[in-house]
Protein backbone atom coordinates (compact mmCIF):
# COMPACT_ATOMS: atom_id res chain seq x y z
CA UNK A 1 0.00 0.00 0.00
CA UNK A 2 1.29 3.45 -0.85
CA UNK A 3 0.05 7.03 -1.08
CA UNK A 4 -0.99 7.89 -4.63
CA UNK A 5 1.32 10.22 -6.55
CA UNK A 6 -1.81 12.04 -7.79
CA UNK A 7 -3.03 13.33 -4.40
CA UNK A 8 -3.64 17.10 -4.44
CA UNK A 9 -3.83 18.97 -1.11
CA UNK A 10 -5.63 22.33 -1.00
CA UNK A 11 -5.80 24.41 2.20
CA UNK A 12 -9.45 25.24 2.92
CA UNK A 13 -9.82 28.84 4.09
CA UNK A 14 -8.80 29.39 7.71
CA UNK A 15 -10.60 26.30 8.95
CA UNK A 16 -7.41 24.25 9.31
CA UNK A 17 -9.06 21.72 7.02
CA UNK A 18 -8.00 20.72 3.52
CA UNK A 19 -9.71 19.77 0.28
CA UNK A 20 -8.23 16.56 -1.01
CA UNK A 21 -8.55 15.96 -4.75
CA UNK A 22 -7.41 12.88 -6.62
CA UNK A 23 -5.93 13.52 -10.07
CA UNK A 24 -7.55 10.60 -11.92
CA UNK A 25 -10.19 8.95 -9.69
CA UNK A 26 -12.01 12.28 -9.41
CA UNK A 27 -12.45 11.99 -5.64
CA UNK A 28 -12.99 15.28 -3.77
CA UNK A 29 -13.00 15.24 0.03
CA UNK A 30 -12.98 17.62 2.96
CA UNK A 31 -10.34 16.37 5.41
CA UNK A 32 -8.75 17.39 8.67
CA UNK A 33 -5.09 18.39 8.70
CA UNK A 34 -4.00 15.15 10.41
CA UNK A 35 -5.26 13.20 7.37
CA UNK A 36 -2.98 15.31 5.17
CA UNK A 37 -0.09 14.77 7.63
CA UNK A 38 -0.80 11.05 7.53
CA UNK A 39 -0.79 10.88 3.71
CA UNK A 40 2.32 13.04 3.35
CA UNK A 41 4.11 10.96 5.94
CA UNK A 42 3.02 7.88 4.05
CA UNK A 43 4.47 9.38 0.83
CA UNK A 44 7.81 10.26 2.43
CA UNK A 45 8.33 6.94 4.17
CA UNK A 46 6.74 4.78 1.46
CA UNK A 47 4.30 3.56 4.08
CA UNK A 48 7.06 2.11 6.26
CA UNK A 49 6.23 4.28 9.25
CA UNK A 50 2.54 3.58 9.12
CA UNK A 51 0.46 4.78 12.03
CA UNK A 52 -3.21 4.37 12.74
CA UNK A 53 -3.69 7.74 14.41
CA UNK A 54 -6.44 8.76 11.99
CA UNK A 55 -8.41 5.58 12.61
CA UNK A 56 -9.07 2.48 10.55
CA UNK A 57 -12.35 3.80 9.18
CA UNK A 58 -10.64 6.88 7.69
CA UNK A 59 -7.88 4.71 6.23
CA UNK A 60 -10.51 2.53 4.56
CA UNK A 61 -12.16 5.63 3.07
CA UNK A 62 -8.78 6.81 1.74
CA UNK A 63 -8.29 3.41 0.06
CA UNK A 64 -11.83 3.33 -1.37
CA UNK A 65 -11.34 6.76 -2.95
CA UNK A 66 -7.89 6.12 -4.42
CA UNK A 67 -5.67 8.25 -2.13
CA UNK A 68 -4.05 5.08 -0.81
CA UNK A 69 -3.45 2.51 -3.50
CA UNK A 70 -1.94 -0.89 -4.25
CA UNK A 71 -0.80 0.41 -7.64
CA UNK A 72 2.85 1.34 -8.11
CA UNK A 73 3.69 4.66 -9.80
CA UNK A 74 4.03 3.05 -13.28
CA UNK A 75 0.60 1.46 -12.92
CA UNK A 76 -0.86 4.78 -11.82
CA UNK A 77 0.75 6.47 -14.87
CA UNK A 78 -0.80 3.86 -17.12
CA UNK A 79 -4.24 4.39 -15.57
CA UNK A 80 -3.99 8.15 -16.12
CA UNK A 81 -2.89 7.60 -19.71
CA UNK A 82 -5.78 5.21 -20.29
CA UNK A 83 -8.26 7.87 -19.14
CA UNK A 84 -6.55 10.61 -21.19
CA UNK A 85 -6.63 8.46 -24.34
CA UNK A 86 -10.34 7.74 -23.89
CA UNK A 87 -11.01 11.45 -23.45
CA UNK A 88 -9.19 12.25 -26.71
CA UNK A 89 -11.20 9.57 -28.47
CA UNK A 90 -14.40 11.14 -27.17
CA UNK A 91 -13.43 14.60 -28.46
CA UNK A 92 -13.33 13.15 -31.98
CA UNK A 93 -16.98 12.19 -31.56
CA UNK A 94 -18.19 15.64 -30.45
CA UNK A 95 -21.51 16.24 -32.22
CA UNK A 96 -20.95 19.88 -32.98
CA UNK A 97 -17.35 21.18 -32.83
CA UNK A 98 -16.47 24.80 -32.13
CA UNK A 99 -17.05 26.82 -35.31
CA UNK A 100 -16.18 30.47 -35.84
CA UNK A 101 -16.44 32.72 -38.88
CA UNK A 102 -14.24 35.79 -39.45
CA UNK A 103 -16.16 38.17 -41.77
CA UNK A 104 -13.04 40.37 -42.00
CA UNK A 105 -9.76 40.93 -40.15
CA UNK A 106 -10.43 44.67 -40.10
CA UNK A 107 -11.19 46.42 -36.82
CA UNK A 108 -12.28 49.93 -35.86
CA UNK A 109 -10.29 49.95 -32.60
CA UNK A 110 -6.55 50.38 -32.06
CA UNK A 111 -5.97 48.65 -28.70
CA UNK A 112 -2.23 48.73 -28.02
CA UNK A 113 -2.14 45.19 -26.65
CA UNK A 114 -4.14 43.52 -29.45
CA UNK A 115 -2.65 40.11 -30.25
CA UNK A 116 -3.84 40.52 -33.84
CA UNK A 117 -2.14 43.91 -34.31
CA UNK A 118 0.76 42.13 -36.07
CA UNK A 119 -1.70 41.55 -38.91
CA UNK A 120 -1.98 45.30 -39.55
CA UNK A 121 1.37 45.21 -41.41
CA UNK A 122 -0.39 43.24 -44.14
CA UNK A 123 -2.00 46.51 -45.21
CA UNK A 124 -5.44 47.99 -45.54
CA UNK A 125 -6.46 45.97 -48.62
CA UNK A 126 -5.74 42.67 -46.87
CA UNK A 127 -7.47 43.77 -43.66
CA UNK A 128 -10.57 44.98 -45.46
CA UNK A 129 -10.97 41.79 -47.49
CA UNK A 130 -14.44 40.57 -46.62
CA UNK A 131 -15.71 37.02 -46.72
CA UNK A 132 -17.93 36.40 -49.79
CA UNK A 133 -21.33 34.76 -50.15
CA UNK A 134 -19.68 31.91 -52.09
CA UNK A 135 -17.32 31.33 -49.17
CA UNK A 136 -20.22 31.40 -46.69
CA UNK A 137 -22.02 28.81 -48.83
CA UNK A 138 -18.87 26.67 -48.78
CA UNK A 139 -18.69 26.94 -44.96
CA UNK A 140 -22.29 25.80 -44.51
CA UNK A 141 -21.63 22.98 -46.93
CA UNK A 142 -18.54 21.97 -44.94
CA UNK A 143 -20.16 22.09 -41.49
CA UNK A 144 -22.08 18.77 -41.79
CA UNK A 145 -18.89 17.07 -43.03
CA UNK A 146 -16.99 18.32 -39.98
CA UNK A 147 -19.68 17.26 -37.47
CA UNK A 148 -20.05 13.77 -36.10
CA UNK A 149 -23.71 14.08 -35.25
CA UNK A 150 -26.76 16.27 -35.47
CA UNK A 151 -25.98 19.71 -36.87
CA UNK A 152 -29.32 21.20 -35.91
CA UNK A 153 -28.55 22.43 -32.43
CA UNK A 154 -25.20 24.15 -32.59
CA UNK A 155 -23.84 27.64 -32.31
CA UNK A 156 -21.42 29.52 -34.51
CA UNK A 157 -19.27 32.34 -33.17
CA UNK A 158 -18.67 35.49 -35.19
CA UNK A 159 -15.09 36.55 -34.66
CA UNK A 160 -12.56 38.93 -36.17
CA UNK A 161 -10.95 41.49 -36.42
CA UNK A 162 -14.23 43.03 -35.42
CA UNK A 163 -17.09 40.90 -36.78
CA UNK A 164 -19.84 43.45 -36.14
CA UNK A 165 -18.40 46.36 -38.11
CA UNK A 166 -21.11 48.47 -39.76
CA UNK A 167 -19.53 47.60 -43.14
CA UNK A 168 -20.15 43.89 -42.43
CA UNK A 169 -23.91 44.32 -42.03
CA UNK A 170 -24.81 42.70 -45.37
CA UNK A 171 -22.57 39.67 -45.02
CA UNK A 172 -23.50 39.08 -41.37
CA UNK A 173 -27.17 39.12 -42.43
CA UNK A 174 -26.36 36.48 -45.06
CA UNK A 175 -24.49 34.32 -42.50
CA UNK A 176 -27.42 34.48 -40.08
CA UNK A 177 -29.93 33.62 -42.82
CA UNK A 178 -27.87 30.58 -43.82
CA UNK A 179 -27.59 29.53 -40.17
CA UNK A 180 -31.32 29.87 -39.63
CA UNK A 181 -31.94 27.25 -42.32
CA UNK A 182 -29.89 24.81 -40.22
CA UNK A 183 -31.52 25.96 -36.97
CA UNK A 184 -28.18 27.28 -35.68
CA UNK A 185 -27.74 30.22 -33.34
CA UNK A 186 -24.88 32.71 -33.18
CA UNK A 187 -22.65 34.37 -30.65
CA UNK A 188 -20.14 37.14 -31.29
CA UNK A 189 -16.89 38.28 -29.73
CA UNK A 190 -17.27 41.99 -30.39
CA UNK A 191 -15.92 45.33 -29.20
CA UNK A 192 -19.54 46.55 -29.18
CA UNK A 193 -18.83 49.85 -30.96
CA UNK A 194 -21.13 49.39 -33.99
CA UNK A 195 -23.56 47.07 -32.21
CA UNK A 196 -26.48 49.45 -32.56
CA UNK A 197 -26.42 48.87 -36.33
CA UNK A 198 -26.97 45.14 -35.72
CA UNK A 199 -30.01 45.59 -33.48
CA UNK A 200 -32.29 43.68 -35.88
CA UNK A 201 -29.96 40.68 -35.74
CA UNK A 202 -29.93 40.42 -31.96
CA UNK A 203 -32.23 37.92 -30.26
CA UNK A 204 -33.75 34.49 -30.61
CA UNK A 205 -32.48 32.38 -33.53
CA UNK A 206 -30.06 35.15 -34.48
CA UNK A 207 -27.20 36.47 -32.33
CA UNK A 208 -28.11 35.22 -28.85
CA UNK A 209 -24.84 35.83 -27.00
CA UNK A 210 -22.21 38.51 -26.98
CA UNK A 211 -18.84 38.95 -25.35
CA UNK A 212 -17.85 42.61 -25.08
CA UNK A 213 -14.59 43.86 -23.57
CA UNK A 214 -14.22 46.76 -21.13
CA UNK A 215 -10.81 47.66 -19.72
CA UNK A 216 -11.87 49.79 -16.78
CA UNK A 217 -13.79 52.97 -15.95
CA UNK A 218 -13.94 55.56 -18.80
CA UNK A 219 -10.67 57.30 -17.79
CA UNK A 220 -8.81 53.99 -18.25
CA UNK A 221 -10.88 52.27 -20.93
CA UNK A 222 -10.80 55.24 -23.30
CA UNK A 223 -7.00 55.39 -23.26
CA UNK A 224 -6.72 51.72 -24.27
CA UNK A 225 -9.72 50.87 -26.44
CA UNK A 226 -10.03 53.84 -28.75
CA UNK A 227 -11.03 54.46 -32.37
CA UNK A 228 -8.50 55.29 -35.10
CA UNK A 229 -9.04 59.02 -34.37
CA UNK A 230 -8.18 58.20 -30.72
CA UNK A 231 -11.68 58.99 -29.44
CA UNK A 232 -12.88 56.87 -26.53
CA UNK A 233 -15.55 54.19 -26.73
CA UNK A 234 -16.78 53.58 -23.15
CA UNK A 235 -20.02 55.55 -23.47
CA UNK A 236 -20.93 54.06 -26.83
CA UNK A 237 -20.22 50.50 -25.74
CA UNK A 238 -22.24 50.96 -22.52
CA UNK A 239 -25.26 52.18 -24.49
CA UNK A 240 -24.96 49.24 -26.86
CA UNK A 241 -24.76 46.75 -23.98
CA UNK A 242 -28.09 48.17 -22.76
CA UNK A 243 -29.55 47.74 -26.25
CA UNK A 244 -28.42 44.09 -26.38
CA UNK A 245 -29.82 43.34 -22.92
CA UNK A 246 -33.12 44.96 -23.91
CA UNK A 247 -33.24 42.60 -26.89
CA UNK A 248 -32.87 39.59 -24.58
CA UNK A 249 -29.29 38.81 -25.59
CA UNK A 250 -26.93 37.23 -23.06
CA UNK A 251 -24.06 39.64 -22.53
CA UNK A 252 -20.74 38.72 -20.92
CA UNK A 253 -18.38 41.60 -20.28
CA UNK A 254 -14.73 40.64 -20.29
CA UNK A 255 -12.69 42.96 -18.06
CA UNK A 256 -9.05 42.99 -19.13
CA UNK A 257 -6.74 43.58 -16.19
CA UNK A 258 -3.04 44.36 -15.90
CA UNK A 259 -0.95 46.43 -13.49
CA UNK A 260 -1.90 49.62 -15.34
CA UNK A 261 -5.65 49.05 -14.92
CA UNK A 262 -6.08 47.05 -11.74
CA UNK A 263 -6.57 50.12 -9.53
CA UNK A 264 -9.63 51.07 -11.61
CA UNK A 265 -11.53 47.85 -10.90
CA UNK A 266 -13.57 49.08 -7.88
CA UNK A 267 -14.71 52.18 -9.82
CA UNK A 268 -15.67 50.09 -12.83
CA UNK A 269 -17.70 47.73 -10.62
CA UNK A 270 -19.48 50.74 -9.08
CA UNK A 271 -20.33 52.08 -12.56
CA UNK A 272 -21.63 48.68 -13.66
CA UNK A 273 -23.78 48.51 -10.50
CA UNK A 274 -25.17 51.99 -11.21
CA UNK A 275 -26.15 50.84 -14.68
CA UNK A 276 -28.06 47.96 -13.09
CA UNK A 277 -26.27 45.36 -15.21
CA UNK A 278 -25.62 42.86 -12.41
CA UNK A 279 -29.33 42.65 -11.63
CA UNK A 280 -30.11 41.70 -15.23
CA UNK A 281 -30.77 37.96 -15.64
CA UNK A 282 -28.72 37.71 -18.83
CA UNK A 283 -25.67 39.68 -17.76
CA UNK A 284 -22.32 38.34 -16.50
CA UNK A 285 -18.83 39.77 -16.19
CA UNK A 286 -15.43 38.17 -15.79
CA UNK A 287 -11.96 39.44 -15.13
CA UNK A 288 -9.04 38.20 -17.17
CA UNK A 289 -5.34 38.90 -17.41
CA UNK A 290 -3.90 40.27 -20.66
CA UNK A 291 -1.39 37.96 -22.33
CA UNK A 292 0.66 39.59 -25.02
CA UNK A 293 4.39 39.35 -24.32
CA UNK A 294 5.34 41.48 -27.31
CA UNK A 295 3.06 44.35 -26.34
CA UNK A 296 2.82 44.23 -22.60
CA UNK A 297 6.07 44.07 -20.65
CA UNK A 298 6.35 41.62 -17.79
CA UNK A 299 6.53 44.70 -15.61
CA UNK A 300 2.91 45.49 -16.49
CA UNK A 301 1.43 42.03 -17.02
CA UNK A 302 -0.40 40.39 -14.13
CA UNK A 303 -0.15 36.69 -13.47
CA UNK A 304 -3.40 34.77 -13.06
CA UNK A 305 -2.62 34.03 -9.41
CA UNK A 306 -2.16 37.78 -8.76
CA UNK A 307 -5.48 38.51 -10.39
CA UNK A 308 -7.12 35.97 -8.06
CA UNK A 309 -6.04 38.12 -5.11
CA UNK A 310 -7.43 41.25 -6.73
CA UNK A 311 -10.62 39.42 -7.63
CA UNK A 312 -11.22 38.44 -3.99
CA UNK A 313 -11.13 42.15 -3.12
CA UNK A 314 -13.65 43.29 -5.73
CA UNK A 315 -16.06 40.35 -5.59
CA UNK A 316 -17.63 41.63 -2.40
CA UNK A 317 -18.42 44.94 -4.16
CA UNK A 318 -20.83 43.21 -6.52
CA UNK A 319 -24.40 42.89 -5.24
CA UNK A 320 -24.94 39.63 -7.13
CA UNK A 321 -21.60 37.95 -6.47
CA UNK A 322 -22.40 35.02 -8.77
CA UNK A 323 -22.59 37.43 -11.70
CA UNK A 324 -18.84 38.06 -11.70
CA UNK A 325 -16.11 35.46 -11.94
CA UNK A 326 -12.46 34.83 -12.70
CA UNK A 327 -11.41 33.50 -16.08
CA UNK A 328 -10.15 30.19 -14.68
CA UNK A 329 -10.89 28.03 -17.71
CA UNK A 330 -14.25 27.09 -16.20
CA UNK A 331 -12.70 25.05 -13.35
CA UNK A 332 -14.78 26.52 -10.52
CA UNK A 333 -18.06 26.30 -12.41
CA UNK A 334 -17.47 22.73 -13.62
CA UNK A 335 -16.19 21.52 -10.22
CA UNK A 336 -19.23 22.93 -8.45
CA UNK A 337 -21.57 21.34 -10.97
CA UNK A 338 -19.83 17.97 -10.57
CA UNK A 339 -20.20 18.13 -6.77
CA UNK A 340 -23.88 19.10 -7.09
CA UNK A 341 -24.36 16.09 -9.40
CA UNK A 342 -22.43 13.90 -6.91
CA UNK A 343 -19.94 12.83 -9.57
CA UNK A 344 -16.27 13.17 -10.49
CA UNK A 345 -15.14 16.60 -11.73
CA UNK A 346 -14.53 17.11 -15.44
CA UNK A 347 -11.22 15.68 -16.61
CA UNK A 348 -9.58 16.79 -19.81
CA UNK A 349 -6.80 15.51 -22.02
CA UNK A 350 -6.49 18.62 -24.12
CA UNK A 351 -6.44 22.20 -22.80
CA UNK A 352 -9.13 23.53 -25.11
CA UNK A 353 -11.09 22.72 -28.23
CA UNK A 354 -8.19 23.93 -30.40
CA UNK A 355 -6.34 20.74 -29.59
CA UNK A 356 -9.45 18.69 -30.22
CA UNK A 357 -12.09 20.06 -32.58
CA UNK A 358 -12.21 23.69 -33.54
CA UNK A 359 -12.55 25.33 -36.94
CA UNK A 360 -12.16 29.06 -37.56
CA UNK A 361 -12.99 30.12 -41.15
CA UNK A 362 -11.38 33.30 -42.48
CA UNK A 363 -12.04 35.55 -45.53
CA UNK A 364 -9.14 34.00 -47.47
CA UNK A 365 -10.53 30.46 -47.55
CA UNK A 366 -8.25 29.31 -44.72
CA UNK A 367 -9.19 27.26 -41.65
CA UNK A 368 -7.46 27.74 -38.29
CA UNK A 369 -7.63 25.55 -35.19
CA UNK A 370 -7.24 28.32 -32.61
CA UNK A 371 -8.54 31.87 -32.10
CA UNK A 372 -5.04 33.18 -31.55
CA UNK A 373 -3.34 31.77 -34.63
CA UNK A 374 -5.72 33.36 -37.15
CA UNK A 375 -4.19 35.26 -40.06
CA UNK A 376 -0.82 33.46 -39.92
CA UNK A 377 -0.99 31.03 -42.83
CA UNK A 378 1.90 29.02 -41.39
CA UNK A 379 -0.47 28.08 -38.60
CA UNK A 380 -3.57 27.22 -40.61
CA UNK A 381 -4.89 23.67 -40.40
CA UNK A 382 -6.45 23.58 -43.85
CA UNK A 383 -8.65 25.27 -46.45
CA UNK A 384 -12.41 25.37 -46.98
CA UNK A 385 -12.52 27.36 -50.22
CA UNK A 386 -12.55 26.60 -53.09
CA UNK A 387 -12.48 23.07 -51.66
CA UNK A 388 -12.58 21.60 -48.19
CA UNK A 389 -9.24 20.13 -47.19
CA UNK A 390 -8.39 19.81 -43.51
CA UNK A 391 -5.03 18.51 -42.27
CA UNK A 392 -1.38 19.41 -42.78
CA UNK A 393 1.97 19.23 -40.97
CA UNK A 394 1.08 22.09 -38.65
CA UNK A 395 -2.18 20.44 -37.63
CA UNK A 396 -0.26 17.23 -37.02
CA UNK A 397 2.10 18.93 -34.53
CA UNK A 398 -0.63 21.11 -33.00
CA UNK A 399 -2.88 18.13 -32.35
CA UNK A 400 -0.12 16.55 -30.26
CA UNK A 401 -0.33 19.13 -27.50
CA UNK A 402 -2.32 16.90 -25.20
CA UNK A 403 -1.70 14.56 -22.28
CA UNK A 404 -1.20 11.28 -24.22
CA UNK A 405 1.57 13.03 -26.20
CA UNK A 406 3.23 14.95 -23.33
CA UNK A 407 5.22 12.42 -21.27
CA UNK A 408 6.37 15.05 -18.75
CA UNK A 409 2.77 16.05 -18.01
CA UNK A 410 1.63 12.46 -17.49
CA UNK A 411 3.53 12.38 -14.20
CA UNK A 412 1.95 15.59 -12.94
CA UNK A 413 -0.90 15.30 -10.45
CA UNK A 414 -2.71 18.18 -12.21
CA UNK A 415 -2.42 16.55 -15.67
CA UNK A 416 -6.12 15.87 -16.23
CA UNK A 417 -7.15 19.32 -14.98
CA UNK A 418 -4.51 21.48 -16.72
CA UNK A 419 -4.10 19.21 -19.78
CA UNK A 420 -0.71 20.64 -20.71
CA UNK A 421 -1.79 24.28 -20.77
CA UNK A 422 -2.60 26.64 -23.63
CA UNK A 423 -1.09 25.33 -26.86
CA UNK A 424 -0.72 28.83 -28.30
CA UNK A 425 1.12 30.12 -25.25
CA UNK A 426 3.37 27.09 -25.38
CA UNK A 427 4.25 28.01 -28.96
CA UNK A 428 4.63 31.73 -28.38
CA UNK A 429 6.76 31.26 -25.27
CA UNK A 430 8.95 28.65 -26.94
CA UNK A 431 8.32 26.39 -23.98
CA UNK A 432 9.50 22.85 -24.49
CA UNK A 433 6.35 20.87 -23.95
CA UNK A 434 3.75 22.59 -21.80
CA UNK A 435 2.69 25.93 -20.37
CA UNK A 436 2.15 25.63 -16.62
CA UNK A 437 2.67 29.18 -15.32
CA UNK A 438 0.91 29.25 -11.93
CA UNK A 439 -1.83 26.75 -12.67
CA UNK A 440 -1.45 25.03 -9.28
CA UNK A 441 -2.24 28.23 -7.36
CA UNK A 442 -5.19 29.08 -9.60
CA UNK A 443 -6.54 25.53 -9.41
CA UNK A 444 -6.39 25.63 -5.60
CA UNK A 445 -8.27 28.95 -5.54
CA UNK A 446 -10.99 27.78 -7.93
CA UNK A 447 -11.53 24.39 -6.29
CA UNK A 448 -11.62 25.84 -2.75
CA UNK A 449 -14.12 28.45 -3.91
CA UNK A 450 -16.30 25.81 -5.63
CA UNK A 451 -16.27 23.59 -2.51
CA UNK A 452 -17.05 26.54 -0.21
CA UNK A 453 -20.11 27.52 -2.27
CA UNK A 454 -21.22 23.90 -2.63
CA UNK A 455 -21.05 23.31 1.15
CA UNK A 456 -22.80 26.62 1.91
CA UNK A 457 -25.65 25.82 -0.48
CA UNK A 458 -25.92 22.27 0.86
CA UNK A 459 -26.13 23.51 4.42
CA UNK A 460 -28.75 26.10 3.37
CA UNK A 461 -30.85 23.40 1.67
CA UNK A 462 -30.62 21.18 4.76
CA UNK A 463 -31.62 24.04 7.01
CA UNK A 464 -34.56 24.95 4.73
CA UNK A 465 -35.77 21.37 4.61
CA UNK A 466 -35.64 21.23 8.43
CA UNK A 467 -37.71 24.42 8.60
CA UNK A 468 -40.14 23.02 6.00
CA UNK A 469 -40.45 19.79 7.99
CA UNK A 470 -41.19 21.79 11.16
CA UNK A 471 -43.86 23.74 9.26
CA UNK A 472 -45.45 20.48 8.05
CA UNK A 473 -45.52 19.11 11.61
CA UNK A 474 -47.05 22.39 12.83
CA UNK A 475 -49.70 22.25 10.07
CA UNK A 476 -50.44 18.61 10.83
CA UNK A 477 -50.93 19.51 14.49
CA UNK A 478 -53.23 22.40 13.49
CA UNK A 479 -55.22 20.07 11.21
CA UNK A 480 -55.51 17.54 14.00
CA UNK A 481 -56.68 20.21 16.48
CA UNK A 482 -59.25 21.45 13.93
CA UNK A 483 -60.63 17.97 13.42
Amino acid at each position, binding site marked *: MRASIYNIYIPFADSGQFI*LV*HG*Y*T*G*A*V*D*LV*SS*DVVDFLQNFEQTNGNKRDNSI*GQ*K*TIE*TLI*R*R*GYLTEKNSEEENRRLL*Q*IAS*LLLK*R*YQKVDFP*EFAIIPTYDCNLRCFYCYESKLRVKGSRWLKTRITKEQIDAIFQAIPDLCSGNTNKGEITLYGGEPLLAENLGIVEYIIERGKNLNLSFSA*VTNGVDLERFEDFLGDKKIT*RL*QVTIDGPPRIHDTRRFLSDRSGTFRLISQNINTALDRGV*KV*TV*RINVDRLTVSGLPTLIRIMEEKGWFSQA*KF*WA*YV*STVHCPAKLSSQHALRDSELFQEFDKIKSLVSESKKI*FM*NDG*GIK*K*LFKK*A*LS*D*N*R*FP*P*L*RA*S*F*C*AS*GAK*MYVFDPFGDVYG*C*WETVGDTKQRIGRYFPELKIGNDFMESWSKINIPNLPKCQKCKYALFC*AGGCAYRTYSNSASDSFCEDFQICFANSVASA*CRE*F*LQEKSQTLSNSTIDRREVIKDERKDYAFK
Partner: protein
Amino acid sequence: MSEKITPLNEDLLVEASLEELEQKLEFGASPTCCDGLRVGS
Protein backbone atom coordinates in the same frame (compact mmCIF):
# COMPACT_ATOMS: atom_id res chain seq x y z
CA MET B 1 -18.09 8.39 6.51
CA SER B 2 -15.76 9.26 9.36
CA GLU B 3 -15.31 12.60 11.13
CA LYS B 4 -11.86 13.16 9.70
CA ILE B 5 -12.90 12.80 6.09
CA THR B 6 -16.10 13.98 4.43
CA PRO B 7 -16.50 12.79 0.82
CA LEU B 8 -18.00 15.51 -1.36
CA ASN B 9 -18.78 13.24 -4.32
CA GLU B 10 -19.45 9.54 -4.81
CA ASP B 11 -19.45 8.65 -8.51
CA LEU B 12 -15.72 8.10 -9.08
CA LEU B 13 -13.38 6.38 -11.52
CA VAL B 14 -11.45 4.32 -8.92
CA GLU B 15 -12.20 0.78 -10.00
CA ALA B 16 -13.99 1.42 -13.30
CA SER B 17 -13.20 -1.14 -16.00
CA LEU B 18 -12.24 0.05 -19.49
CA GLU B 19 -15.83 -0.39 -20.62
CA GLU B 20 -17.20 1.50 -17.63
CA LEU B 21 -14.64 4.25 -18.15
CA GLU B 22 -15.73 4.64 -21.76
CA GLN B 23 -19.34 5.03 -20.64
CA LYS B 24 -18.60 7.40 -17.77
CA LEU B 25 -16.34 9.63 -19.87
CA GLU B 26 -19.01 9.95 -22.57
CA PHE B 27 -20.59 12.58 -20.35
CA GLY B 28 -19.06 15.68 -18.89
CA ALA B 29 -17.76 18.82 -20.46
CA SER B 30 -15.69 19.02 -23.57
CA PRO B 31 -12.95 21.58 -23.51
CA THR B 32 -13.96 24.93 -24.95
CA CYS B 33 -11.90 27.89 -26.01
CA CYS B 34 -13.91 30.72 -24.66
CA ASP B 35 -15.27 29.70 -21.30
CA GLY B 36 -16.08 33.27 -20.41
CA LEU B 37 -18.47 33.51 -23.32
CA ARG B 38 -20.02 30.19 -22.42
CA VAL B 39 -20.72 30.88 -18.76
CA GLY B 40 -24.11 32.31 -19.45
CA SER B 41 -25.29 29.13 -21.09
